[in-house]
């Protein structure tokens, strides 16, 4: 069945002329029309432009030109990445009518790679949230159980890949927003090293934490997408001038001698014991394959969450100040300027966004800066040092991605309870490290994710470990019932 094929297999079908890109694209677009009414991953389906892009790929095939690995293959992008001429709403009503006149660098790179944009997918408003229930439009469902959340904020990206509506999607991760939904939806999600993928054209939530990354159904697919989007961008000053390797070269089925640290602090109160069991079995798998696994300590872990909820809102309060109704997006019609600013923001932003703007404004205000923001930055340094110390001894760190499996919609009405879902992913963003979540087992038919973390630019090591685990287990071959019915 074509919907279950890997990127590599699809590429071979295209160059072998077993299928045309237009046929492939139509197949996925048809599946979107079948599956998406229940999953609701898409905010916009760009069928016309997708078919035009597919036709371009087909012309190249007909002319006998060499085809890139992603060329002619459909994909989806989280709706916080700018696409020239295509609405980019950030899941917010305030940007409902915003059509950017420019492309994000990732958009340009995927276009240059010939990938076919099937549409823009749902997210928690401005990437704030861990369930995709906070979208300004509608919640997205978890393909494994439509009553449950897909995780967030890249819930649309994870769900559309899990539901096989596209072979791959891009998400963004500020505190776990790629890895947590990847875990809930049973797919592979990578948050690259901060600075590896350009943020130009990614609508900012928290600039010092945000990073774009791929969501796929396999580790190899993930490495192939990273190949297309990684690399220095002169338009992003925080983009690192790092010569990126071909990440598929790390896909070696071998972890012999790999030193894996398991942080004690990631197995503390709040962790569902069933999730702990799944991860312990995964650890056993690694040991059986020849990896050296030891428990280790990241002593400042408990301060990561409070530090994150100072830094991220502080940056967001500033980044979101531009949505004032003056130049684009939603504008409240009022008599005077100040009232217009206030009403536009009151009516255009949702609860969670307003909550974080308030938190951040408070944390930065005069008299509180030292006590909150500055303190949080010091904690951030300590957390980085914890990781630096750990990576002096270990190649990678291993942990659950989330403390629980996907919960039901509406279950977590207390924002603080929802914030706890990112407790294992947030430290990675604070330290700017790469982290990947891969399927590691199931509990009652719901996927469990395992997180692997490495030092800066250690994506190759992550892929090697993840690939080895994947090749020696079958979890990634499980498919949600809704897809099985189609196939």
């Amino acid at each position, binding site marked *: 069945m074509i919907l279950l094929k890997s990127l590599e297999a699809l590429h071979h079908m295209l160059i072998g002329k077993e299928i045309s890109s237009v046929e492939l694209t139509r197949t996925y677009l048809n599946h979107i029309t079948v599956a998406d009414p229940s999953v609701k991953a898409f905010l916009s389906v760009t069928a016309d432009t997708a078919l035009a892009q597919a036709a371009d790929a087909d012309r190249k095939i007909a002319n006998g030109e060499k085809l890139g690995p992603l060329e002619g293959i459909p994909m989806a992008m989280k709706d*916080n*990445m*700018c696409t020239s001429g295509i609405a*980019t709403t*950030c899941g917010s009503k305030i*940007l409902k009518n*915003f059509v*950017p*006149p*420019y492309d*994000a660098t990732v958009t340009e790179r995927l276009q240059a790679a010939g990938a076919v944009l099937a549409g823009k997918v749902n997210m928690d408003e401005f990437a704030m949230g861990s369930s995709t229930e906070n979208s300004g439009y509608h919640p997205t469902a978890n393909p494994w159980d439509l009553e449950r959340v897909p995780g967030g904020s890249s819930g649309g990206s994870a769900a559309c890949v899990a539901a096989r509506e596209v072979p791959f999607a891009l998400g963004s991760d500020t505190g776990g927003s790629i890895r947590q939904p990847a875990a809930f939806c049973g797919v592979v999600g990578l948050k690259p090293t901060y600075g590896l993928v350009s*943020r*130009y*054209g*990614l*609508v*900012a939530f*928290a*600039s*010092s934490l945000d990073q774009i990354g791929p969501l796929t159904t396999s580790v190899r697919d993930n490495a192939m997408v990273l190949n297309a989007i990684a690399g220095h961008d*002169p*338009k*992003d*000053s*925080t983009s690192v001038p790092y010569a990126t390797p071909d990440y598929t070269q790390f896909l070696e089925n071998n972890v012999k001698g790999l030193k894996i640290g398991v942080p004690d602090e990631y197995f503390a109160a709040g962790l569902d014991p069933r999730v702990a069991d799944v991860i312990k079995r995964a650890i056993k798998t690694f040991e059986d394959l020849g990896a050296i696994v030891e428990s280790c300590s990241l002593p400042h872990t408990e301060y990561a969450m409070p530090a994150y909820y100072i830094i991220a809102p*502080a*940056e967001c*309060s*500033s980044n979101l*100040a*531009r949505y*004032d109704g*003056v*130049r*684009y997006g939603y504008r409240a019609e009022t008599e005077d*300027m100040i009232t217009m*600013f206030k009403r536009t923001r009151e009516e255009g932003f949702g609860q969670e966004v307003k909550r974080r703007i308030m938190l951040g*404004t408070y944390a*930065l*205000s*005069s008299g509180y*800066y030292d006590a909150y*923001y500055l303190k949080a930055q010091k904690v951030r340094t300590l957390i980085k040092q914890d990781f630096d110390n750990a990576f002096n001894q270990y190649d990678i760190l291993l942990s659950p991605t989330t403390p629980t499996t996907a919960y039901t919609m509406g279950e977590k009405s207390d924002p603080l309870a929802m914030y706890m879902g990112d407790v294992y992913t947030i430290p990675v963003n604070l330290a700017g490290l790469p982290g990947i979540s891969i399927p590691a087992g199931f509990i009652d038919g719901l996927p469990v994710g395992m997180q692997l973390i490495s030092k800066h630019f250690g994506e190759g090591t992550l892929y090697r470990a993840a690939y080895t685990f994947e090749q020696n287990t079958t979890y990634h071959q499980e498919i949600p019932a809704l897809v099985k019915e189609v196939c």
Partner: protein
Amino acid sequence: MSFLDKYEMVCGVETHVEMATKTKIFCGCSTEFGGEQNTHVCPVCLGLPGVLPVLNKEVVNLAIKAGLALNCDIAEFSKFDRKNYFYPDLTKNYQTSQYDLPICKNGWLDVMVNGTMKRIGITRAHMEEDAGKLVHSGDTITTSNSSGVDYNRTGVPLLEIVSEPDMRSIDDVLAYLEELVQIMDYAGISDCKLEQGSVRFDINVSLRLKGTETFGTRTETKNLNSFSSVRRCLEYETERQADALDEGLEIIQETRTWDEGRGMTLSLRSKEEAHDYRYFPEPDLMPLVIDRDWVERIRATMPELPTAKRERLQALGLSAYDAGVITASKDMAFFFDQAMATCDDAKLLANWVMGDLSALLKTNGRTFADSPVSPAQLASLVMLIKKGDISGKIAKSVIEEIYSTGKDPETIVKEKGLAQISDAGELEKIIDGILAANEKSVADYKAGKEAALGFFVGQVMKATKGQANPGMVNKLLKEKLAQ
């Protein structure tokens, strides 16, 4: 009795200088003044969702240069911060600026105030982006039905130079500002077109009883853009504060605005209403690390600054006054230096630069930068006068001729036969003829009526159409009449 007998003013100035880069501070848009509204804009300077700033290195080069000219320490490590506030002319609703770690610190400027040298401290100078401009449908924001925004100016690089509160009189302030603007002009930091708003001043002023040490409560008047406004504003504001103090009222620490039309300052906002800018480090830009080589490379390109130039001109024989006048304008000083390359009389050249040529340019609305009389032509003209080839009076007509035709002075003198007659033989013949024709006057002179000499000189000049060398005519006449 003036209130200044009782009170002493304490003043510090923040000067915003638009830097003379071709492109904006964080994007590649043009910084040119006066373009069609919203034509020099891109997603980055418009602050559209998702865009990121990239620092223009030329801005850093100019900031380092300015810092060196102002005797500042150039920070090896500085950074950008966000200054958060809402206003429609601010595309991101925060301004990217430098807060606690500016690029330049701890400098000073020596200025001459009424013949005495005074040192004014420079606290800091930092880089930041300019905002856009509101365009109202009516005369003012309150009487307009609608207002548009022109974002062409958004992202134009600014250098904010903050002085210490070292100035004690209006003369101090104006001397400091004039010197500062001159330096920015000489060093090429800015085009310093005050009338286009490329230099703006915020004036902090307070009064204290003479002889006391502690500072009084100050007010800040923002956005003055001419020296005369600064003078009038300070006159008004110090008198206002003195009146209030005399009445026993408290001065409110506040931000004020200068109303040019009414010639008064008006309250804008008090300390209580002051913005909380919620500064924090700009996460989209890396900290700025400047190694010493970078600073030395910039130092090597430093041009001669006004003080050094004034000293050099005085060493050439000019008075302090003349040197001051010539260096007051970079273009005039540059013109003078170029002319000096082929001239050996600095004083005579200075007179012609400051006098006739200045007047000629001013009458025609031109400047020394686009003077039709070249420095070499003026130098030649001065040399012709010095050698006695033409008289100063003839030279006045020659320079006008150069101005309108572009011909060299030698050519004009030759073509029009304006060369001075310094040939003693030729002059003697003419003088003899005149004396012979005016026997009565000769007799008067010999009888003691010395004023008759002027009559003879006038006659000789008339006969030679002004070309006779006046010195020689005088000398020869006296000799002949003594016989």
